[in-house]
């Protein structure tokens, strides 16, 4: 019995989209609300705080992480574009580069967190540290989630390319949409937490 999932590659006549494309965008819409609620919380906490600390975070390390994440968005979009140009080995190279950049981001974050912990700057110490750890912690979990998905597509998930290259290309596109969103969140987190 043929039990193929419909509209993985071909577009649905009513939406004009493959189902996965609409699915990932609806997921990202819910993510906008998740991070939006926390940004809104940040505004309330900051307006209510009698004082707000300045220069408590490592700006050079934050800047480096911003550059790393933007770079990883570039390698991610190239991983997809390489598949569209039927260049499998370049696709692998770019996807591996994205995973490596994501890991470097997390390693930097680990050093940052341990420096805070070592000087007793725990989330309970101040409102600023509480919202800082909540926002960057949730964002870090998103980076970890992205790494897991990408490693899957480098490993067992890559088999799909031989059976259905178009479906595999679409999956990489959806992974990219998620990844660019995680980058986009950081583009706002960095100035809001590190610079203002």
């Amino acid at each position, binding site marked *: 019995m043929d039990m193929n999932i419909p509209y993985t590659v071909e577009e649905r006549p009513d*939406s004009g989209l493959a189902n996965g494309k609409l699915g990932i965008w609806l997921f990202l*819409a819910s993510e*906008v*609300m998740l991070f939006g609620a926390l940004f809104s919380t940040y505004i309330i906490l900051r307006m209510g705080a009698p004082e707000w600390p300045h220069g408590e975070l490592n700006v050079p390390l934050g800047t480096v992480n911003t550059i790393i994440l933007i770079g990883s*968005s570039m390698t991610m979009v190239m991983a997809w574009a390489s598949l569209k*140009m039927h260049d499998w080995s370049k696709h692998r190279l770019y996807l591996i580069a994205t995973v490596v950049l994501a890991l470097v981001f997390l390693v930097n974050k680990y050093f940052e967190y341990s420096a805070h912990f070592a000087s007793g700057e725990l989330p309970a110490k101040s409102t600023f540290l509480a919202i800082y750890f909540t926002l960057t912690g949730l964002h870090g979990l998103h980076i970890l989630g992205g790494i897991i998905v990408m490693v899957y597509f480098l490993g067992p998930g890559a088999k799909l390319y031989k059976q259905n290259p178009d479906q595999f290309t679409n999956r990489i596109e959806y992974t990219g949409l998620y990844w660019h969103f995680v*980058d986009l969140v950081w583009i*706002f987190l960095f100035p809001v937490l590190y*610079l*203002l």
Partner: protein
Amino acid sequence: MHSDPESIRKSVRGYIKVFVALMVFTIITVAASRLHFGVPIAITVALIIASIKGSMVATVFMHLSYERKWIYGALILTGLGFLILMSVPSFTMMDHIGTPIHVEAPAAEHARP
């Protein structure tokens, strides 16, 4: 939709341009924060730059410059929800209308015999 390798090559040139622009804007953001503007100006400048960077990521990397109307529809709804979320802080401030925000700490009164 672009599917043939030639138009992909064209979009790759666009990705590189956006990548360079994002790097430049990152440096501008950090440099602007060193100028020590007043807090309202600093927040405005930082958020304007972040919005420019964010929209470049969304339109080019996430292909929103050419997408189907169902996705735009979902995003318009999300935008509305996001606006409501962002206005929650001002609803909170309404509780304080007519009262001074920084009232003297009541601790002083307790200290009196």
